[in-house]
């Protein structure tokens, strides 16, 4: 779709390889994609032109970043009805279709749309890869990754690194820690350590809301 109606600063969004972690840290295994990305960022650096992005639960705001890249690697929690913790890799045309098969969270609806809209607008990437992990627990607000899912992060990152070597992203193991990718207050250790008790946070059902019905 050219010429584009507006392109004052498309350069801001451009990179040749985008590594995108998506999900909601506040809903237990929903945070898989972002936590995996954090770990990748903590241990590895890449050549210029490779961008790591915590996409959170943003929907269409991610569109310019998607359209600005040639190779896209997505880390996300995805439900395809396999045993919890199972990793699933999907490539290229299968990715948006796959993400649309069964949605368990609303942000995926959003993200599947973003990929489809990008394609409709003429985005034609060289490669797209999704590394998905089957979640164990989702409905635990304020919870962290389950042990099952957390244990799969190293393997997910090995899969990611294999592909990134092939994409000539030049991963290099870091010798000194990098600047944080996400907010300090959301760092895994702090997030887990500061979680209030179920009683204090009224996670057992809050009588103020449900009245006598709880």
């Amino acid at each position: 779709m050219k010429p584009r109606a507006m392109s004052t600063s498309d350069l801001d969004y451009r990179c040749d390889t985008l590594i995108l972690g998506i999900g909601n840290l506040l809903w237990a295994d929903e945070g898989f994609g972002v936590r995996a990305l954090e770990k990748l960022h903590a241990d590895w650096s890449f050549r210029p032109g490779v961008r790591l992005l915590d996409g959170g639960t943003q929907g269409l705001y991610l569109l310019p970043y998607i359209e600005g890249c040639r190779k896209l690697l997505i880390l996300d929690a995805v439900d395809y009805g396999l045993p919890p913790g199972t990793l699933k890799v999907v490539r290229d045309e299968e990715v948006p279709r796959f993400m649309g098969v069964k949605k368990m969270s609303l942000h995926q609806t959003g993200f599947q749309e973003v990929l489809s809209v990008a394609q409709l607008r003429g985005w034609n990437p060289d490669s797209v890869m999704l590394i998905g992990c089957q979640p164990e627990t989702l409905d635990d607000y304020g919870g962290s990754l389950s042990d099952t899912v957390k244990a799969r992060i190293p393997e997910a990152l090995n899969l990611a690194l294999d592909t990134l070597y092939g994409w000539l992203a030049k991963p290099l193991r870091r010798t000194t820690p990098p600047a944080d990718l996400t907010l300090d207050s959301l760092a895994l250790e702090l997030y887990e350590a500061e979680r209030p008790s179920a009683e204090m946070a009224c996670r057992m059902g809050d009588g103020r809301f449900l009245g006598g019905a709880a």
Partner: protein
Amino acid sequence: MGAYETQGFKLDNSGKRIVVDPVTRIEGHMRVEVNLDTNNVIRNAVSTGTMWRGLEVILKGRDPRDAWAFTERICGVCTGTHALTSVRAVEDALGILIPENANSIRNIMQLTLQVHDHLVHFYHLHALDWVDVVSALSADPKKTSELAQSISSWPLSSPGYFRDIQNRLKKFVESGQLGPFMNGYWGNPAYKLPPEANLMAVTHYLEALDFQKEIVKIHTIYGGKNPHPNWLVGGVPCAINVHETGAVGAINMERLNLISHIIDRTIEFIDQVYIPDLLAIASFYKDWTYGGGLASKSVMSYGDIPDKANDYSAANLMMPRGAIINGDLSKVHEVDLRDPSQIQEFVDHSWFKYAGANDAAGKGLHPWDGETVAHYELGKNAKGTSTNIEQIDEGGKYSWIKAPRWKGHAMEVGPLARYIIGYVQNNPEFKEPVDRVLKKLDLPLPALFSTLGRTAARGLEASWAVHKMRYFQDKLVANIKAGDASTANIEKWDPSTWPKEAKGVGFTEAPRGALGHWIKIKEGRIDNYQCVVPTTWNGSPRDSKGQIGAFEASLMNTPMAKADQPLEILRTLHSFDPCLACSTHVMAPDGQEMTRVRVR
């Protein structure tokens, strides 16, 4: 409840009941139940807010200078408008005056939100209620090009351009991926556009995405980020330094020029694409006159966009202010947000409870004295359980939204309310565009009181707002060139300068309508805080007199083409741009069905 009459509507809940839940996808906090008569015409409507907000409770005891950052998080879409309302409330309470530059920048921020919100709403959230995507596949690209060129000089209009997009769409649909267009009610007889108009609209849907990403850059420049830009009690948190020495990150000429450029490009898109699309779509739905609801009866606007700083009188506000009641267009009433007898909130049918002597039927509280105590109980005729409601009983409590009333009247707020008030006040900036649209479509004034009228007013307002952005950007640059770089007044920043007790009110016109925050400050801390948001007005449940809210009224007497496809219900509710809602089309958690529609 049986049958009764209120506000000119005959309510009858004896017919077949339809439940639509959620009405919205991304936020999913709204539910609607209607009763149909034997001809599938809506004879009763019940709107339920299904989420507790509770921000008022969180704010108690906090520093009033921080309130904006909390209230801003009420919504991720109208980001910023709650923050502006909040800083105005605190400034009102403490008698803080802001510099002219801060007023101009705040207005540009607020107008940016209006434009962004209206544009995104029209193309990405509401258009698919009118536009049949699948029908676009059978369009003739050459005829589409002729159609586009007949209504606008927008350059992207060649047959090849439309063919290209149609081919991509075709490939998409053939591969079974409807993507953003999945699960629409495609082919429903309530869609009226010819294939060419559908193809043109789908194409502009894709183009509009470029604009939404550009416009929000204005928030990132003046407010540091988007969504949820930064604000400041006493002004704005961005320094101006056009000489580019001594201040890192300050607003310089390059940044001001970038904003200017974005404004100009947005004016082009709105006036050459949005408005012509709106008129083209409307011309095919002239017979669909439903959805007016309270618009022809009771509407209200607080007004907004002060021309000069610190003057919130109607004469200085560029957006109209006032109230119309009982359909009497000959009189616009003064609205006073401080008068305890004017704006009151009732909880007879809301899941709240007032304390002590206030816990009485038909008791309304002014927001300064407002209470936010949850009290969840279903009416005795509700079906299902308290955590899995099958059917609401509107005779009892049935919503997390309170019922605000102005002098006892349920009111509609929003772009249509603003345009009706501006129109009857003979304000040429509002009256002339309405007259032009009506003439072009060959429609009488009452046609404005409809779903389509609401959608049209939003488009006209987007154009009005983007031109006002130009005005304030020019005003800002002129003021800076005249040597005034001040953006904040921090004389009363320190709480030691505050009185022991103070109260204030701040208001704005959010994209969705009149928004007010009421604050009481005691010994430097928030003692009470109440937000009455546009969707509280529009989404209001019944009150003790049985008066219905604007959403409910708007659905009354609408015929449905198919009872199990609530396209008409969604179309009308989406025309309000409900804040509970973020999206046009609804997806259940399994992604397969569009919305949970149950027919009983």
